């Protein structure tokens, strides 16, 4: 029984990783958004599994919130924003590290996160073993996407991946910090996305570009 449960846990974690790789391996913003949507749906499924295993009902609410906010509202908002942008954005053309190298770097990051998690003294727990490295890997890959890609849109996507990793981290390690705080975190994300959408409009209008490299007026020289 326990091994089957562990298999289910690890496989759902693996599917989550695949969804994360979907973002690293693709170039178009719409592809990212779709990958993010799948990732969030899987994440809410994973959360529900954690809820089932631990038997804490609050986690189901968190899973529902994840489903609604991250897989419906945020992608909708971002789709709307990109439609309305004055600059048409189709593909990320020249990231700092090429797509193929970044895919491999992400795989190394996954290995790194498994290694790191083994170094930290956790209580042996199936959920922790299965999901914690995955969440760390998401966190690292998010950071990597954030620094590697050149457009503002992809930085938003990087932030979203990081955030998903954090959510899974908290869920896996502590079976959810209390519901009130989670709702607070969700509100923070939502407001953050709204603000960054406004900023996206302004950047596209004042800089005539979505390239992060253009944002370099402020320097010490």
């Amino acid at each position, binding site marked *: 029984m326990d091994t*089957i449960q562990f298999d289910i846990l690890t496989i759902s974690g*693996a599917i989550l990783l695949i969804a994360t*790789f979907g973002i690293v*391996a693709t170039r178009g913003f719409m592809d990212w958004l779709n990958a993010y949507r799948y990732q969030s749906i899987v994440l809410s499924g994973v959360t529900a599994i954690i809820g089932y295993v631990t038997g804490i009902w609050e986690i189901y609410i968190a899973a529902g919130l994840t489903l609604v906010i991250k897989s419906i509202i945020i992608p909708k908002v971002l789709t709307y924003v990109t439609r309305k942008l004055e600059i048409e954005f189709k593909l990320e053309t020249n990231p700092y590290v090429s797509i*193929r190298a970044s895919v*491999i770097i992400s*795989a190394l990051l996954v290995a790194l996160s498994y290694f790191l998690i083994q170094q930290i003294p956790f209580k042996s727990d199936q959920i922790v073993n299965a999901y914690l490295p995955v969440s760390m890997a998401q966190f690292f890959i998010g950071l990597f996407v954030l620094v590697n890609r050149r457009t503002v849109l992809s930085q938003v996507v990087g932030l979203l991946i990081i955030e998903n990793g954090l959510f899974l981290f908290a869920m896996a390690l502590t079976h959810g910090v209390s519901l009130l705080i989670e709702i607070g975190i969700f509100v923070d994300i939502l407001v953050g996305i709204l603000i960054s959408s406004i900023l996206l409009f302004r950047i596209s209008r004042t800089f005539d570009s979505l390239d992060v490299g253009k944002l370099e007026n402020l320097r010490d020289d």
Partner: protein
Amino acid sequence: MLNMITIIIGLIQVLVILVLAPLLTGIIRKTKARTQKRIGASILQPYYDLLKLVRKDEVISDQTSWIFRACPWINFAAITTAAFFIPVFLAYTPFGLVGDLLLVIGLFALGRFFTMLAGLDVASSFGGLGSSREMMISALLEPALFLSIFVVAITYGGTNLSTLISASSNSSFLPHPQIIFAAIGLFIIILGETGRLPFDNPATHLELTMVHETMILEYSGKSLALMEWSQSIKQIILFTLMINIFVPWGISSSILLSTLAVGFLTFIGKISLFGIFVAFLESSVAKWRLFRIPDLIAIAIATSMIGIVLCYL
């Protein structure tokens, strides 16, 4: 006595592969035609093609050396030898004592090596072009292939195909997570190895896009028949490996007539379904630029690497 029976079954498995190979090609072509709203040739058409080619005369350029003439035979021999090590509907092959998965890959590499040489040997610009492209792709594919095979080998304990496939058929209904990653990696690699879209378009004769076809462009008659047949045998071998490693359900694990029959029927079903799936996939993607192909292979390498990491969980 038992040994005798297993050897006979082993031979039958080889025969099944050799005979069914053109049929699989036919199924894929038919499905592709249907998805493109064409009626398409009969699924037996590859057999007719082979028969027609065998009956025809051969034209050989006087600029070629023995390599050109020997290549089809070496290629065919290498790939047919590989077929001996593949469990098809029984999770065991008596010839597995002599060779394992790595030997199969080695034999494929040998065949490919001679095909590339033959492409260069005719001294036409097309052949050289095809060979250089093929070399680039295979040089990239090889490490990815080995990585994903390591994942499978570590999980199921060994590269011997008999132990590997019987271990996978005995494992639980849910595969290990690393196997999912290995499957993704291996699937991409198999598309590349068999020269399917988006790596290579097997149906084209445009000099800009073709890879495999350019190398065998100068062949005709019996040699061409051999080359084409070897190619479809290679394809069915790789597909069989894929389904037997990753979806081993239904494969017979004992030498009883009933289980063998079930194993054979499920094998036919699975391989046709897999062929249809590949055909659908081919209809939905376009061929990628040659220099974007490393992106795809990078994904295969990355997923296999994650698979290896998960092995040591």
